[in-house]
């Protein structure tokens, strides 16, 4: 098990009013993502608990890419990972952001 | 394989201690049924002896005896004596609905207890998995004699499933009671309420269990007190509070 933590500044807040959302399931090759709107509108924190050690750089890149694309300002994103591939991680993050953007 | 039509030495000793004036408890195919004089009335007995696996016929027979006691009324307590294997593992048992037979036996015990027949489990040997749930764990109070050795799964099997080395599991088992086999660990989770004292008369100890049996399920509270299940009681209580609207929940 490995814990990773990333802190990003965003240009804007993520739109929408939903306070929290969850997507995905902890299973082999899958992950769950919990999103909570509880930070300043220009901050995004991502906390990861992963079953597979040694992929910190890959996680950093996937998270940075997500933050750059979606500008998820205001969110704490907490991830329980069962060993998902980067494309699955990106998909779940995008799903989570979409849920939070719902009016 | 022990002779399955006579009680094992341990069971015979338990019956002799409980019923000094004799009893009508019989053993057939490892299944224990009958009763004997106890205090002012009678004590009904069902059970499993000699590490016997519990299959569909056994569960059906024992449930029938429990329902006989419930039908007769009168508050006769029921003692469930257990030295069993796990549930019988076979294609035929599952084909015919083993889950229904085991659940039916547990329900019979739960119903009898609710109708005023205190159910007391006494673990004096092994028990595991579905057989344990359907018998000993379906009683109001579960006691054990020293030397009893319940398990959900033995460590080599746990090692196979979890793919962890056996030596590591053995080391973990010494400090973590939540997964490790054995009586002490089942006491810590609250599943086994009390270990009896073999130096004291058994009948008096069983009579005390009947007299002092808690009316509600206190196993999770015991598990918290004893440290074997640190969170279960609080989690259940929290769900109750939220369901009953006694807290204002956050988002």
């Amino acid at each position, binding site marked *: 098990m490995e814990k990773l933590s990333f802190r990003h500044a965003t240009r804007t807040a993520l739109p929408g009013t939903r306070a929290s959302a969850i997507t995905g399931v902890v299973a082999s090759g899958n992950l769950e993502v919990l999103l909570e709107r509880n930070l300043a509108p220009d901050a995004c924190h991502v906390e990861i608990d992963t079953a597979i050690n040694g992929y910190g750089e890959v996680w950093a890149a996937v998270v940075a890419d997500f933050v750059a694309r979606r500008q998820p300002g205001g969110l704490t994103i907490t991830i329980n990972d069962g060993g998902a591939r980067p494309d699955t991680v990106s998909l779940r993050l995008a799903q989570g952001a979409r849920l939070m953007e719902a009016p | 394989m022990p002779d399955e039509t006579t009680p094992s030495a341990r069971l015979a000793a338990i019956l002799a201690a409980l019923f000094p004036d004799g009893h009508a408890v019989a053993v057939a195919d490892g299944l224990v049924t009958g009763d004997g004089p106890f205090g002012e009335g009678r004590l009904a007995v069902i059970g499993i002896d000699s590490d016997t696996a519990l299959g569909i016929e056994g569960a059906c027979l024992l449930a029938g005896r429990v329902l006989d006691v419930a039908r007769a009324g009168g508050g006769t307590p029921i003692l469930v004596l257990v030295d069993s294997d796990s549930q019988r593992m076979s294609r035929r048992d599952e084909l015919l*609905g083993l889950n229904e037979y085991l659940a039916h036996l547990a329900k019979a015990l739960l119903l009898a207890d609710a109708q005023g027949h205190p159910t007391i489990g006494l673990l004096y040997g092994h028990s595991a998995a579905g057989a344990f749930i359907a018998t000993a764990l379906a009683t109001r109070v579960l006691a054990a004699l020293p030397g009893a050795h319940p398990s959900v799964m033995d460590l080599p099997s746990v090692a196979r499933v979890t793919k962890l080395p056996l030596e590591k599991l053995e080391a973990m088992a010494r400090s973590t009671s939540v997964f490790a086999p054995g009586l002490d660990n089942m006491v810590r989770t609250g599943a086994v309420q009390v270990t009896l004292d073999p130096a004291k008369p058994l009948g008096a100890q069983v009579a005390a269990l009947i007299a002092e049996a808690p009316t509600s399920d206190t196993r999770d509270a015991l598990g918290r007190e004893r440290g074997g299940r640190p969170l279960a009681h609080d989690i259940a209580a929290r769900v109750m509070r939220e369901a009953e609207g006694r807290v204002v929940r956050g988002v």
Partner: protein
Amino acid sequence: MDWKPVALSTAPLDQSWYEASARARLAGLLDADTFEEFIGPAQRMMSPHLPLFELPRAFDDGMIVGRGRLDGRDVLVAAQEGRFMGGAFGEIHGAKLVGLLRAALAVKPAALLILFDTGGVRLQEANAGETAIAEIMRAIAVTRAAGIPVIGLIGGRAGCYGGGGLIAGTCAHLVISEGGRLSVSGPEVIETNRGAEEFDSRDRALVWRTMGGKHRRLIGAADAFVDDTIGAFRAAALAAIPTAPTFDLASLEAEQARLEARLARFGDAQDATEIWGRLGVNDPAAVPGLTTEAFDTLLDSLPERPHHAR
């Protein structure tokens, strides 16, 4: 069995129960937007034990409990996520259902629904899981005796095995689909303990006709057989509420008679098809391929209807 997409529709009620997550099942089963979770994921009540085994945790520990409405009626619900740790019962997972059942006495819902999806006890927390199962069964008996129907829905990936099978057998009413498998020891467990001659777990057709939904419905272990859609489970759960038997001596006496009769009639059967033949099914070999509609027609045509005292 092959799992065809049930419909090209995107409507929640048309989605496959088997493929859906526990949360999606709840969202579709209940009236829209009525589900309210107790100890939701944001509370992060996760297993304290899994990290010892280097295993990832889930925010809800694989058990989602809460309340909602079913066709306007207040119900309490519990759903297992079969993809997390095989839906197995651990300390928190089990305690959430214990608490929900205990709460039912005060809340007095129209029903309490359990969406099973479980391999049994979580070995990493075996003693806590096993004890929780016993607590759940006792709480179900108390809840049913108070007149609250406890209804089980079985159609998930993990099936309903081990202690889950015993809990299911304690419910007042069971709804099962083709994908639902209900038993105590799973095929792999029997094969590991007794060999492939006893049970070849790779023979999927054998697994399905020994433990699957149609067989369980035919012998009376389940009360309703439904299509693998969220809508079908919803309709069957609704229909079950007024019919669920209470928990009393009469119910258990009737179940005793039912189970004794089964032993006497089918105790020597070698295979499910033999049992189906004796029940009056003309072409037992065709049963696994029947649609739900054809299967219901078959049930109606049998000389005796299964009776469901439980």
